[in-house]
């Protein structure tokens, strides 16, 4: 948790230097105006989800984060170095949870399989629709150095074999690696992605409510810190 809070501090700082005050970022977050990643709009039901999220969602995340290391805006690239480094711990943590469950009882293995089944859809949507690099503003502006489909292929190539080797299955009958090394898969549900990231996911409003409450209940801390410093 501390890592993630630290990452947000670093990123808000970069945004502030680009001209947008932190308070405004937080206002946009809790009003629902600012988007956040699709995976945060879903419920987490069991320890299986905890492991699968920390392992596979963070694995997908680190692929997009690594594509920011060569960002044309150097202050962003510099903080991404630290963020990527810490995310790699999170993947290990998730893998450890998953391996522990897989070495446990049938019921525990079942928890992991259910979690993989639940998270596969959001994971395949995670890197975005396969828009051509040259039409992707993030790529054209050299904010990131990799196209969406490239990122997804890298994820599949790195992690599907790791899922399979544990005896887990992936809920996509059409998933396979072709002879040319390209992964084939069922087209992800892009309508679901659009709907979820615009605040219509199963947990979107709960997550925002929690942020609102956190901001209210921590207001006194900000007051004390600023009074102390004055």
């Amino acid at each position, binding site marked *: 948790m*501390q890592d993630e809070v*630290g990452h947000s*501090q*670093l990123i808000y*700082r*970069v945004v*502030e*230097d680009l001209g947008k005050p*932190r308070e405004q970022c937080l206002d946009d977050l809790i009003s629902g105006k600012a988007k956040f990643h699709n995976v945060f709009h879903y419920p987490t039901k069991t320890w299986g989800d905890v492991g699968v999220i920390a392992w596979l969602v963070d694995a997908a995340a680190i692929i997009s984060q690594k594509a920011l290391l060569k960002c044309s805006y150097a*202050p962003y690239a*510099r*903080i991404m170095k*630290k963020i990527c*480094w*810490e995310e790699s*711990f999170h993947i290990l943590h998730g893998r450890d949870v998953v391996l522990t469950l897989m070495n446990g009882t049938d019921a525990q293995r079942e928890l992991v399989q259910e979690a993989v089944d639940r998270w596969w859809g959001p994971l395949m949507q995670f890197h975005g629709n396969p828009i051509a690099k040259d039409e992707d503003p993030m790529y054209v502006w050299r904010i990131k150095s990799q196209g969406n489909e490239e990122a997804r292929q890298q994820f599949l190539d790195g992690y599907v074999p790791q899922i399979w080797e544990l005896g887990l299955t992936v809920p996509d009958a059409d998933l396979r690696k072709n002879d040319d090394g390209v992964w084939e898969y069922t087209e992800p549900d892009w309508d679901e992605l659009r709907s979820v990231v615009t605040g219509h996911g199963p947990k979107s409003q709960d997550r925002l409510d929690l942020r609102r409450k956190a901001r209210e209940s921590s207001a006194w801390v900000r007051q004390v*810190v*600023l009074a*102390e*410093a*004055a």
Partner: protein
Amino acid sequence: MIYEIFRQERKGQPFHHAGSLEAANHDFAEQYAKEFYGRRGESEALWVVPREAIIEVDEFVDELKRNYHRVDGYSLKEKLRRARERVGSALVARDR
């Protein structure tokens, strides 16, 4: 106040810019810097510098205006060839 953080990874290495942070005063800045850049033993030392204390200089007038003040202002090849020819050593000396 905004502070710039410079990080030394190992003893003897130069400090590199790591990022910046916002803190209410120096004490908080020191604590935040430790949290953001030193939790996992990734830093040997940190420099925490108020941004306003940094004097940035990024305009340089070319006061020299003479190319003989720069290495690219020298073309020795032709002069060396002539000097060697003069003493007849052109065949033995290595061309440089």
